[in-house]
């Protein structure tokens, strides 16, 4: 028999546990990406010599290299310098930093989308620079880019499966471990695929509705 129903049901709880870890990674990773990306975007905007260029290059470099290799790099190099972190924490930090390169660009487009008049009005009102950023520009910029950040959230949810390669015990690792011990790969991998689908498709649909309702900048 190709598909064993009893077996499929018996492994479901374990896979659901893996899914919970996957969701946790996604939320924690996105928290890092959302904050770090904003910091990078603002620093690039301030046009501080050298720093802006270095940040720009780092963003470009991270976007031009594979997440898997970045994960290997960090996962194997850190222990050599005596920094011991769990695979899970390493994975969250790596994926968070990786995605912050993308969110930084998203915030940038959001900041650029704030009308020049807003800046001019703040200058006319003699608002301090910092206040202009925190009270005028960022609230408008962040609101505009929320749907775009949502896209990256869904993307990160799927990409977190890559972290199984550095022994993070998320959905994909669980499925693979079951396959290796039971010599049956169809059920665990198919269920894993369905679980990814069940979470990501509704999220995509909700996001699309949000985008059409609130509009977005590109």
């Amino acid at each position, binding site marked *: 028999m190709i598909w064993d129903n009893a077996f499929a049901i018996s492994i479901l709880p374990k896979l659901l546990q893996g899914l919970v870890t996957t969701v946790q990674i996604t939320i924690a990773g996105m928290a890092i990406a959302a904050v770090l990306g904003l910091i990078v975007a603002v620093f690039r905007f301030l046009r501080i010599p050298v720093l802006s260029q270095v940040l720009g290059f780092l963003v470009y470099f991270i976007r031009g290299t594979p997440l898997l290799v970045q994960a290997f790099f960090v996962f*194997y190099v850190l222990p050599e310098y005596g920094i011991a972190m769990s695979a899970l924490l390493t994975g969250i930090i790596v994926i968070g930093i990786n995605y912050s390169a993308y969110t930084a660009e998203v915030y940038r487009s959001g900041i650029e989308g704030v009308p020049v008049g807003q800046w001019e009005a703040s200058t006319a009102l003699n608002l301090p620079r910092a206040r202009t950023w925190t009270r005028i520009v960022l609230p408008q910029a962040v609101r505009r880019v929320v749907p775009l950040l949502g896209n990256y959230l869904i993307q990160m949810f799927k990409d977190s499966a890559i972290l199984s390669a550095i022994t993070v015990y998320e959905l994909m690792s669980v499925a693979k471990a079951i396959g290796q011990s039971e010599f049956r790969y169809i059920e665990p991998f198919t269920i894993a695929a369905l679980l990814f689908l069940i979470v990501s498709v509704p999220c995509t649909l909700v996001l699309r509705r949000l985008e059409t309702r609130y509009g977005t900048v590109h």
Partner: protein
Amino acid sequence: MDAIAEYLPLIRQGLVTTVEVTVLGAVLALVVAFVLGLARLSTHRWLRWTAACIVEFLRGTSLVVQLFWLFFALPFFGIQLTALFAGVLALGLNEGAYASEVVRGSIASRPRGQTEAAIALNMTPALRMRRILLPQSVPAMLPPMGNVMVDLLKNSSLVSLVTVADLTFNAGLIRSSTGETALVYGIILILYFLLSLVISAIVALLERRFSPTRERRPLLTSLAGRMQGVS
């Protein structure tokens, strides 16, 4: 550096395999993109819906899952793919689904008058697509298509997980026999980065070739522009 000098041939082989997987995957992705993208614009409802379901399925499940499924689960149906073939297939299908959105989006965003004029001239739908809509859409497709191709290159590293001896896989081998982690992974990170620059350069060249105004921005300027920003 001396420590890995003798392993350079292994890195070169890996580089060749990575380029091979990327190119084959890109060809398949383009085919999938145009088939699915055009199917989603079809007037036949069932065709449109089938294509939409396939795209949602491929985009909704993770590439890693698809890759592992093709390599580990398919043999249970009596179909044993080689690692390379499974890798290229997964990459081509997955990235093709993303690229099909690029195809669909850029064709759908052509001005309505173009379609109407073609209908007024009594063109068949196929001729309308081939002569009017597609040639106009290609320039619009190029930048996002370039992003998909860079993505494809980066995701090609995942085939190392199903034992394809690409850059990432061979780097793992070298690391375990020399212990030079930072050096080995540093080298291949730079190689991947250079490869993605090559893809960006090719896209920039094509953009110049296909741009309707034939603006002659120097290649380096347009590359630097891509580097600065909005992807």
